[in-house]
């Protein structure tokens, strides 16, 4: 990675800003009309935190229902709506906006740009998101209920058998998609056109690299999702037959189109994590990132491979053997670049002077637990094994390990890492450590037993289960409630940190590197109107 030197005039520049340009409108209008990348980053992060709790509340309903066998609290249709909307909110409302928020905050600072390239578009891409989720959540209160066909909305569940409110679901997904695409275009233009002079592509920080690649995945994959939901819409309401066998269509085609989007989507939700972890591990190991360029190439190859593996979600649809073999081998091939990454992180820590502040704790937990999720993914990628695991809780365990202890843990790590820079105050290390340890323990009680439930044959997305699964489900539910409550601690830490605390220095982590650490904490409202110099 590049070594950065201070722009000699920088201090003077910033002082100038503090006095002359740090004015911002007050009150609600500041947030509605803002085009400032830091404000928009904050909005995205705040919205994502809110959605994390809304989706989390739905998970609590699911776990409460599954606490005991038999129908306990909700009726099956409502249970299905909970699993569906929990998934949609966590994917499109919590994880993705959190990454976009981090990108908004950090990418301009990391590449020495004054703001995002398209600030007004940026305002729009955020503000259509709350609209989309209002529509989605409102659909739950429509006659007949909200979407109940799973977040993957397979036809004909989402056409022939779908509730009347499906049009609202389609509309909401369209808006979320447009928001992501606009955000991605903005990030690509910013990275390609606004890098500080001298910052070549191979000198960009890893977080910028991973987001650069993620943005390309977004503009390629999300339009395919838009096509899929549009076909669902016309099949349901306008008598087309894309997925209806009676009219010459094929429901299996839906799965091909959906997963052509869906598999790149899972990398959209993990590549920025890789960037965050690649930033934090070197900072707290006080060493340079091991194998920078191999990290870049590994990220790019994961992104490319993600377009040729989609049918590993469809092994049980009756594919010919040759196709099963192709998709099995291509899937397992992805373990190679992913392995390179894990190796590099471990090699970065090797013989480093490691300290264990909270961002580092989350990052180390990420490496271990994400790798567990990766291994169960490999198991699922092996065709004959998948016939056993398909649609069981083993799958649920797998993707929650990569999404919760993967994506969400990395977001937590990033939030703790940059909070002092954002707010100007240190967060409460003791409370944050408590948050980490409670999360770490409860998340494993929550998701680890699911592996065994799945291996024993418990199907996913069903509100009731056979008696032999009762003990483990009770344990899982207790872990779930504990994990849910632990996250309230995160809110406490963030609120405390915003309101005050020990003053943060310019560079609170002594191993950290990058332009953002050469700016004062909190970061002034306007930064880098003169680009910094890259050595």
């Amino acid at each position, binding site marked *: 990675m590049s070594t950065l030197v201070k722009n000699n005039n920088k201090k003077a520049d910033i002082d100038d800003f503090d006095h002359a340009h740090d004015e911002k409108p007050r009150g609600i209008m500041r947030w509605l009309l803002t085009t400032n990348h830091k404000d928009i980053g904050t909005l995205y992060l705040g919205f994502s935190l809110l959605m994390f709790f809304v989706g989390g509340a739905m998970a609590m309903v699911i776990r409460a229902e599954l606490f005991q066998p038999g129908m306990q609290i909700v009726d099956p249709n409502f249970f299905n709506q909970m699993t569906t909307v929990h998934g949609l909110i966590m994917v499109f409302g919590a994880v993705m906006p959190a990454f976009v928020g981090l990108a908004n905050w950090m990418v301009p600072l990391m590449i020495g740009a004054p703001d995002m390239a398209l600030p007004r578009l940026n305002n729009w891409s955020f503000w259509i998101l709350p609209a989309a989720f209002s529509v989605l959540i409102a659909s739950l209160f429509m006659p007949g209920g909200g979407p109940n066909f799973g977040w993957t909305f397979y036809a004909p569940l989402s056409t022939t058998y779908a509730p009347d409110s499906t049009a609202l679901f389609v509309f909401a997904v369209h808006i979320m998609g447009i928001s992501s695409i606009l955000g991605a275009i903005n990030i690509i233009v910013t990275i390609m056109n606004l890098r500080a002079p001298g910052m070549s592509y191979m000198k960009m920080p890893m977080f910028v690299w991973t987001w650069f690649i993620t943005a390309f995945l977004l503009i390629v994959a999300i339009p395919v999702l838009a096509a899929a939901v549009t076909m669902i819409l016309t099949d349901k309401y306008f008598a087309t037959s*894309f997925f209806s066998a009676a009219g010459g269509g094929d429901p299996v085609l839906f799965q091909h189109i959906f997963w052509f989007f869906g598999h790149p989507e899972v990398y959209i939700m993990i590549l920025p994590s890789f960037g965050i972890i690649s930033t934090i591990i070197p900072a707290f190991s006080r060493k340079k990132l091991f194998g920078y360029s191999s990290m870049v190439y590994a990220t790019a190859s994961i992104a490319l491979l993600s377009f040729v593996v989609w049918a590993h979600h469809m092994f049980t649809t009756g594919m010919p053997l040759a196709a099963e073999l192709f998709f099995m081998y291509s899937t397992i091939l992805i373990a190679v670049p992913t392995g390179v990454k894990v190796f590099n992180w471990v090699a970065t820590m090797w013989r480093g002077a490691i300290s264990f502040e909270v961002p580092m704790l989350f990052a180390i937990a990420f490496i271990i637990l994400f790798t567990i999720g990766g291994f169960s993914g490999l198991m699922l990628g092996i065709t004959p094994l998948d016939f056993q695991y398909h649609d069981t809780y083993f799958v649920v365990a797998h993707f929650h390990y990569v999404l919760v202890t993967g994506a969400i843990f990395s977001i937590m790590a990033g939030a703790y890492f940059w909070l002092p820079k954002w707010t100007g105050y240190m967060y409460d290390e003791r409370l944050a450590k408590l948050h980490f340890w409670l999360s770490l323990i409860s998340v494993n009680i929550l998701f680890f037993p699911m592996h065994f439930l799945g291996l024993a044959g418990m199907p996913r997305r069903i509100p009731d289960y056979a008696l032999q699964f009762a003990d483990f489900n009770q344990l899982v539910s207790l872990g779930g409630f504990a994990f849910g409550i632990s996250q309230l601690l995160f809110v406490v830490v963030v609120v405390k940190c915003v309101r005050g605390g020990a003053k943060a220095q310019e560079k609170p982590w002594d191993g950290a590197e990058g332009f953002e650490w050469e700016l004062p904490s909190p970061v002034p409202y306007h930064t880098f109107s003169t680009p910094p110099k890259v050595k």
Partner: protein
Amino acid sequence: MSDKTLVHKKNNQLIAKLVSVVMLMFLFGYALVPLYDVFCDITGINGRRFVQSTPQISGLNESRLINLQFTTSVAPDMPWKFSPMTKTIEVHPGENKVVKFSATNISPNTVVGQAIPSVSPGIASLYLNKVECFCFNRQELKAGEQVEMGLSFFISSDIPEDINTLTLSYTLFNVTAVNQNKQPI
């Protein structure tokens, strides 16, 4: 040109390219529909490829016997009884056979049905040739009416050695509402 307008021009060119990628990928989503059909026609991989064939005169292979099974089902909103009159049959590759299916409209209304075939294993659909099939046309039954519907077929003599059993299933869909255009599918 000032620096600022230069950046603007650069940005706009890049945005135009990225937006066209987005548009193309949206169209690609739709293009997957015909691509999928063509791909399945060529490879026969999803068991849906059926064309009308002319009867085979030569190529009878009496050394092999293929076990053919017939199953039927009706869509949930289809008020017909529908069943194969022959459940299984053994045929030599190249041998012409006719089997019958029975359908009864048990509703008080005239109903139009369309049968959709599917073969398992999917690849075998490349070797199952239909000379005449009720699935080539829509069927119209008055209230209470019963018909026997014929399927005349042969199995190509080049069917791979490892395929010894095939299942042909028909699902009957209610297409009364969309029957304005009488074109078979």
